[in-house]
């Protein structure tokens, strides 16, 4: 229990933003599944009636966390919680029910529960417990491996449940790790590999290699004293690389040696790689070694992407990425959801059509419109104004959590706060991104807004543990 006089120091702004989001969710769920035969918003036979129950129970849980539970238990039970959630994740593969092709749900009667939601919290707690330990260093090999394992183990199990989308959310921890001292290289490398991946698939490995080479030359420029020189060098080099794709079209040369254009490109960039490696030897510079290493592995990465894309991704995932990149746009197949979703959002206009007036999201056009595609309903009925309000609300919550986390004296709380902000951000980014067609369709809910008790409860617990921990700062 906390003392009365400390209530005032509770982060009421966060609590308010949370309540507003849950209500926005409720109203829009009502609208998205609105049925003239069931106009009662509390009708528990309908999704909005059920969501009302979830919201009320979530508020009760929030109350319990804020005022009843002792905040010390989180640190104490972090490992037990982590272990339990791993067991649940494993158990659900065998004991769970299959929904939409994934084995990630427990069903008890009509109540369904997804352990992957819970394990985000327990993973965060475990990370916070590990990393706030005295003497922990992320930069030591031991510390790095421990941290990585804590994140990767649940990810692997979730992928085994065929819930790749939920597993993807775990990559958000990289933002927290960055704050905790992980080299910016990792973030940059992650970004580079995503860009190379997308470019390889949507254009060609050729273009990807040109981009990579440019990045490498720039990186060398930034690490040396001669940035301008490197940039001046870069421009003709890009030109030569582009020309190399045409060399095999010149009849004279083609008659002499018949090589594919990739080979010509290799001839052009090989000297650069060798030069890099020689320089690394000469100068004994770790940075240069890293650049050479990245250069070589990235090229291998680019060529293995195609393989990965064809062999490892499942059909529907491949279709979704292809659709996002505009390859094989199939409006009746994988592209259908996104197309309908864009029509719904687009038809909202500046001010929206008004509450219950959405025509696109009625009659089940956008599938999963009360869960993963709830943003469509908001976009259609509340327009640009309403959607912006929602985006600003998330922005407010995420930035407020980051700022508040930064102020924590206890590194456990800080790590927890950054993890929370990262996870909310990742959900926000993927979910809204996919409804607008700038991210592939990855079925994860919009925090606090999407229909479903499992998700709402988890995020409520996730958030309110932080609000409670934050209160201790004022002791």
């Amino acid at each position, binding site marked *: 229990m906390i003392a009365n006089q400390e209530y005032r120091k509770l982060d009421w702004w966060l609590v308010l933003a949370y309540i507003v989001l849950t209500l926005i969710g409720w109203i829009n769920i009502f609208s998205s599944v609105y049925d*003239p035969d069931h106009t009662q918003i509390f009708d528990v036979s309908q999704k909005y009636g059920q969501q009302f129950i979830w919201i009320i129970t979530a508020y009760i849980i929030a109350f319990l966390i804020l005022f009843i539970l002792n905040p010390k238990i989180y640190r104490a039970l972090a490992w037990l919680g982590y272990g339990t959630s791993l067991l649940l994740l494993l158990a659900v593969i065998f004991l769970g029910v299959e929904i939409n092709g994934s084995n990630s749900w427990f069903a008890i009667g009509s109540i369904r529960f997804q352990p992957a939601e819970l394990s985000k919290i327990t993973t965060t707690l475990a990370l916070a417990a590990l990393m706030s330990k005295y003497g922990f260093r992320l930069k030591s090999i031991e510390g790095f491996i421990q941290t990585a394992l804590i994140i990767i183990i649940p990810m692997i199990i979730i992928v085994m449940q065929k819930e790749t989308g939920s597993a993807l959310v775990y990559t958000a921890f990289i*933002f927290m790790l*960055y*704050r905790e001292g992980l080299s910016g290289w990792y973030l940059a490398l992650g970004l580079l590999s995503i860009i190379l991946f997308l470019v390889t698939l949507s254009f060609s490995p050729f273009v990807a290699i040109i981009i990579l080479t440019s990045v490498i030359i720039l990186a060398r420029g930034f690490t040396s004293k001669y940035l301008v020189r490197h940039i001046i060098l870069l421009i003709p080099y890009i030109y030569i690389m582009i020309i190399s794709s045409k060399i095999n079209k010149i009849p004279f040369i083609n008659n002499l040696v018949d090589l594919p254009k990739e080979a010509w490109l290799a001839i052009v960039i090989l000297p650069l790689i060798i030069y890099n490696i020689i320089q690394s030897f000469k100068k004994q510079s770790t940075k240069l070694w890293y650049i050479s290493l990245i250069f070589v592995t990235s090229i291998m990465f680019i060529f293995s992407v195609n393989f990965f894309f064809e062999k490892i991704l499942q059909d529907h995932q491949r279709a979704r990425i292809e659709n996002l990149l505009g390859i094989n746009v199939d*409006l*009746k197949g994988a592209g*259908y959801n996104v*197309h*309908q979703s*864009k*029509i719904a*959002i*687009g*038809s*909202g*206009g*500046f001010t929206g059509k008004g509450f*219950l*007036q*959405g*025509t*696109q999201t*009625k*009659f*089940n*056009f956008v*599938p999963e419109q009360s869960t993963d595609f709830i943003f469509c309903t908001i*976009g259609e009925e509340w*327009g*640009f104004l309403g*959607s*912006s309000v929602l*985006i*600003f609300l*998330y*922005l407010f919550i*995420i*930035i407020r959590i*980051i*700022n508040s986390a*930064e102020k924590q004296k206890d590194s456990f709380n800080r790590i927890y706060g950054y993890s929370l902000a990262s996870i909310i*951000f990742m959900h926000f*980014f993927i979910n*809204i*991104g996919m409804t*607008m067609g*700038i991210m592939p369709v990855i079925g994860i809910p919009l925090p606090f807004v999407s229909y479903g008790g499992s998700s709402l409860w988890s995020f409520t617990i996730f958030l309110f543990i932080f609000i409670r921990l934050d209160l201790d700062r004022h002791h």
Partner: protein
Amino acid sequence: MAFEFRRKNILIMGVLAIALIFLIKLFNLQVIDQEYKITASNNAFRYDILYPARGLILDRNGKILVSNISSHDIIITPIEVREFDTLDLCNIFHLEIANVRAKLKEYHLYRRRIGYQSFPFVKQISAQEYSYFHEKAYKFPGFSAISRTTRYYPFNAGGNLLGYITEADTSFLRRNPSYKIGDYIGRTGIEQSYEQILKGKKGYNIYLRDVHNQVKSSYAGGKYDLPAVHGKTIISSIDAQLQQYVEMLMTNKVGSVVAIEPSTGDILTIVSSPGIDVAKLSEINKYYGEILNDPLKPMFNRATMSPYPPGSVFKLVNALIGLEEGVLTSETTYSCHGGYHVGRGVNCHSHPSPINLTQSIMMSCNTYYCIVFRNIIDNPKYNSVREGFLRWKELVESFGFGHKLGSDLPSEQAGKVPDAQDYDKIHGKNKWSSLSILSLAIGQGELGTTPLHLANLAATIANRGYYYTPHLIKGSPDTLINPEYTKRHYTLVDTSHFYQVIDGMYKAVNSPPGSGATATRVAVPGLDICGKTGTAQNPHGRDHSVFICFAPRDNPKIAVAVYIENSGYGATWAAPIASLLVEKYLTGQISRDYLEKYIVESNLLNNVLKNRQ
């Protein structure tokens, strides 16, 4: 602390950047971009499709060959279907109730994919069915009648050359995404060739639905509605009267007739017999099975799709090549004693001997052309048989043989002029001589020419050395003619050589009986028909009867090729048909009623059917 501060801010900037991207994208999607507002898959809109009337097809004299009559289709919008009396609906349109149920079940299964789309349910209903339905329409929510047009053929001619229209099938739709389910497309003939001109452009009216799925009003006062653009009229080069007359002559005969106006390349008549009656065209689906199972293949356009050996009419080509190559002059005389007896040899019929070039054409002497052909191939000008042969082939191909002429008949075939490699395969590389390929001398062997090629040959000779690509369309302000059709294609044979050959063709028809000329029976006084008979041996039984001609000799108006399968000598069947055609076209009447009656009443189908079994 600077380090942490910096990293915190980098992360916050990242979040802000993403939020900014979202807001820009959102603004673009909701405020700027109109694409997602006015789209057919926008569920708030109901698109009522307006179908254009297809363009008319006229003959060269303005007679309507194909027009439209209005009919109705019943379309279904599955999402709007509520419970209804299936039996009642089936009774109106005489449908199988099980089929209807299966169809509805299928729509239900794919309802999400279908959305608010509509599909054709019953096509081309009768006026009576329409009035029944109209009365009871309120009982069948989700079903509505839309007005379509179907083809009507006021004049019974040209079933094969006009083509027909049918609903686009799935494979066509896949290849042509601009077409939608239920659209009609032209198949074969003019309908297919000029689909783009004839089809017009669909339009639509957009209506706005409210959230209760009620159509509220025309969207934006009809600002975005698109009226249908009707198809343009095609004026064809066909002479409908002549076409109809030739179709009558070809009753109960298998083969084809092509007539071309040499001075333009206009196809005046193109008949493939047996063909399709226009009465069946408008209901092609109903007759499709019957047409397909007919052993005489009425869908098959023999005039453009059947490469036959040309037979003796090809001697004209060899004569022209011989003259051009200088191995033959008008004075060249050879004697013939019942055939050419070198190697396997070629027989000849009995005729006066010796003969000169003009007489060789007039009497169609095989021996003469065996010698001429060997002289062409073994010409000492060239180093080898192969070179001589390749020169011959080059000249032959300059007449349009061996490749598609490029007409607007969609089914045109290239035919065949053999390659040196073909003979290498048969005899071994360069192990053949002019003797091994001697059958080419008299238009037999590996040659394949369509009746269209032969009519084009007749037109080329009529023009003294050039042809216009034969075509079915006449230009009009609405429909510009393909510029290729107004270009002269010259053969590699000099104009001066044609006069001697034409002289032979003239004499073949207009010599007195008993002179040995092959086609004296078909002469018409005053018409100056120049012709050449052919009798093509073939592996399918009796010889094909072939005749090509043009008339009049000076300033020719019409060039004709007639090919009658398995009927015998060229002079017996093909020549009279050609002659009647020419007379009808040039004079508008027939002076030889007995000949016309004889031709019309003769049934030559059995010759063909016997061989097909």
